[in-house]
């Protein structure tokens, strides 16, 4: 299967949130498909961990030269997915279409992926003890359907397909916006950002000086120091687990991590 990439166009977007709603809906469809719960039960619970795409809103400037900016927070399906690299149980894999997916069944909730992710993407559900993030709708894509966020967009501000085609369209749009507005529009993620993440599979058309406002990190990285501890512990734990000696320590460590995360709470800006 060819590598799929998505593009988000900040200029064509009308901030209607259809993409975000549809994402959380599709995740409920999956629950019904997997026999976890029916849709009428699932729509009665907010389940924020199933919003794989969320808005981070922020005001910039001072009245009257002020505006609100809505950054889209989402998984970039990195080529060198650091979350996959660090996952101690191998629960994270990259599908043939390029989607980086957490297998919830194999996830032990250690949240190492969250530490490694430079975009703060994986969300830990205290309820389920698992990490969640965008699956790239690999189930839909592998069956010839568009990702649910892309399918939802009424203004084609989100589109997806083969990398070459998507990047070509994105660059065409950026050039047109540059010409019409006199400001320089670029395609964030069209080129490889660095070795830590490699190529992104979610690119964004954005005005050059707005990268920070839209939280588009041009040097996405987690230093070794930030995650070496986790790796060591995870390694040790795995050894112990393999030996089937003391799972107690493993459980203790897991528990400690969960508490730590609980204290961190929800750090999203509004």
């Amino acid at each position, binding site marked *: 299967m060819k590598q799929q990439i998505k593009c988000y166009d900040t200029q064509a977007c009308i901030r209607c949130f259809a993409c975000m709603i549809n994402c*959380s809906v599709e995740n409920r469809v999956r629950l019904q498909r997997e026999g976890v719960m029916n849709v009428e039960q699932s729509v009665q619970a907010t389940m924020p961990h199933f919003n794989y795409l969320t808005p981070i809103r922020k005001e910039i400037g001072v009245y009257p030269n002020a505006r609100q900016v809505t950054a889209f927070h989402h998984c970039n399906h990195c080529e060198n997915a650091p979350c996959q690299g660090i996952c101690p149980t191998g629960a994270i894999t990259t599908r043939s279409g390029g989607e980086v997916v957490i297998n919830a*069944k194999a996830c032990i909730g250690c949240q190492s992926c969250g530490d490694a992710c430079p975009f703060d993407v994986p969300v830990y559900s205290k309820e389920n003890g698992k990490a969640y993030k965008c699956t790239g709708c690999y189930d839909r894509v592998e069956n010839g359907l568009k990702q649910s966020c892309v399918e939802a967009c009424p203004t084609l501000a989100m589109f997806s397909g083969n990398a070459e085609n998507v990047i070509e369209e994105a660059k065409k749009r950026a050039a047109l916006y540059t010409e019409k507005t006199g400001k320089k529009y670029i395609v964030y993620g069209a080129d490889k950002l660095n070795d830590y993440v490699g190529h992104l599979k979610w690119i964004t058309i954005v005005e050059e000086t707005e990268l920070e406002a839209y939280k588009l990190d041009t040097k996405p990285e987690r230093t070794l120091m930030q995650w070496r501890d986790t790796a060591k512990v995870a390694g040790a734990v*795995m050894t112990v*687990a*393999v030996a089937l000696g003391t799972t107690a320590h493993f459980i203790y460590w897991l528990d400690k991590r969960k508490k730590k995360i609980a204290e961190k709470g929800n750090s*999203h800006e509004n």
Partner: protein
Amino acid sequence: MSKTSRRDFLKGAVGSVLGGSILTKTKAEAATVTQVDFGVEKKVPLLCRMCAQFCPMIATVRDGRIVRMEANMDTPYGGICGRGRAAMGALYDPDRIKTPLIRVGERGEGKFRKASWDEVLDLVAGKLKAIEAENDQKSVAFLPRFNSAQELDSNFFKVYGTPNIIGYGDVCFGNGLTVGLSAVVGGKLASGVPDQSTGSVSPDYENAKYGILLQRNPGGALVCHAWGNMFGRGKRNGMQVTVVDPRKPSEAGETDANWVPIRPGTDGPFLLGLMHEIFKNNYFDSAYLAKHTNSDMLIDVKTGLPVQTRQLEKEVKGKKEEILDYLVSTEQGFMFKSEAQTSALFGSFTLDIEGKSVACKTALEMMKEEVKFFTPEWVQEETSIPAQNIIDISKKLNDTKPACFIERGYRSERYASSLREKLLITQINVLLGAFGVKGGVFYNRSVKTTGYMHAPKTKDTSISQWYLKNDINSNFMSDKHYRRTWIKTLLSEKPYKQRVAIFSGQNIVGGSAGSREIIQGLQKLEMIVAISPFLNETIMYADIVMPDCTFMERDEAINTSYKTPIPTIGVNRKAIEPLYESKDGYWIILQLAKRTLKPELFEQYFGEFEREGMMSIWKKQYSKLSGLNEAEMATIPPLESILNGRVWVGEKHYGIKAKGTPTGKIELYSTFLANKKAEFTEKGFDKADYASPLPVYNKPFWIQQKAKLSNNEFIPITGFHPLGTFTGQQTKNNTLLQTINEATNTDAVFINREKGKALKLKTNDIVEIINIDKPEMMNKARVVLSDTVHPDALFCYYGTGAGFYNTMTHFLRNVNKIGFNPNHIANFTFNPLTTGQPAQDFIVSIRKSV
């Protein structure tokens, strides 16, 4: 690609934890889903009613449940918004009305007991029959909304004999938007008032180079099919926008949308300033004005009426039409327009008419002189918009014309001056030569189906007819949309008493300004019946509640009313059986008809429907379509194809034309208004100026009351949230929307940061909001300090409040516990002439809640 069965995949997952090596991690692939998993789904065509716009969509049904919604892409404007995508949240809302209910507590308490359908239907039919026996059918009012039984419901009440089928439009577009457009471009007369419907024109976003968004932004006030879709195309084509709004909406664009904050209620002065610049710098399109408008009409300076006119019979497309011919000035002297080759657009003249000399000017000259006063500096004073901005915006309009537009607006009834603003918008679009052309503002086209039945004329005339005739202040009101005027009738019993109200989907208490007076009016009724799938503020006052099903659970009549440039035919089909004990509106109306009407009358009007069901309506509707050209007619598919979900679409046409003005021209100078103004002046009506055909400044109520606000005072303004409902409860209690609603502060009121700081307020403080005219009325809300709000404005999303006295929090688990709905504390006042509601035209003060 590896195909792993679920069983294997589960094994793998376990193995990876217990048996995995630290060096080579066992892969734990996520489950692979095959076509089969998607294949068992059923697709059903729907027309979305998560708001009121009928966007074509497709429901996916799996195991008897609707699991997702998609846009129906048969139309080039296909698209549905987040509300439509969340329709399952409304459908499976656990707080839906599940059974028929009968009130047991006081009205307003919301205490009901369960009842059977037979019991409630008999109660209502019994009351209707008793009233009929007294020959007092006019005392029954039916108030339908989009989620009722089209083609059947209103007709039943007409057959029963009441003339009072009352629309909600006076709290939305009625009648400022209607008259502000139709006075200039024409419209079929409705009880003497030109009445071109609110969705009849669109800005050509996709081809425009530049547009001014005011009174509406197409992203927030989302009509996805087609306006939201067209707006997105415009953005992709590089359309530039200036947003003139007291609050900066993200939906209009974040990086490039040029925001010009404006003092609430002063769109009039802003538009007058644009017109001033357009005349001063000759930015108008002379050729367009000469060819298509009555700009050259000679006007008697004293009366404002055309100096001389005559009726002329003219053949238009084989039909004879009466045209108002008027005097113009030409190089050969004065003559009638029909005989003139070219005529003067500007000039002042003296005419001898029957021995008297009459001073007159061309219409355009009159307008030019009228706007001389409205300099950019004056505009700055009134609107707080820097004078230079007015100059720049006008220039940009000129540079891009005719591929430019001023947004036509939406939900117009907000200020006493609303009609005037709409009129100015239409006039400026015409002055720029942008009306009817590519990139400007153009007429939508539509197709009409055949009506299912022709109900007999009722013996009594409606309440609206009485007001149109007897109340000069209601002279421009809609004869169909008058629910707040109906409340006046409840209170005054003029022209006659009202005894029974049947609300089908309308929420008059939550959705109209002046909830307290509205409740006082409702309390006088002998019986209040509500038909609705969801609880709302009005239902708290109902005596009898009938659970309507949602649009997803019923077949409906074919629909052709869309806000699209192209004629469109679609139908809503039942995706699942009605949940709980809810019934579809057609069944409810049929049962009421059967129990109320005499058998022969029932047979005459409803017999066929009872036997053949929806098919009888569809067949009749589809038997003759009108409004299409031959080429389009040739592509009309068989009815079956429409019923199977195909959305048929026709062609888009540009075209500069009037639609039924007296002169047959686009009347930049409206003869309808000129006549009315003269009539009102003669009668000594103090608001005669609100009917002026000229660009004059009519102030909103609040500025008349108080030119400058105190430091704790604000004008309560509202805007639509793209996920918020403006028509019902479909989104209010919807769990699927909760996460995004919370992330976007839908419960809050937003005030200017500096002004808030001066009041010692911080974000998340709770404030009490009080109408200064009704200090006993108070709403509480969480405040958010923002730099994207004008200091005079208190902004909140429309319809997000917790209900009158926060009652709804007891019945709907997800509604905001506190929140502001300006309607609840608003004044029960009326816009001059149109009777629209001045929804935002009052002053509130705020204080920190302790």
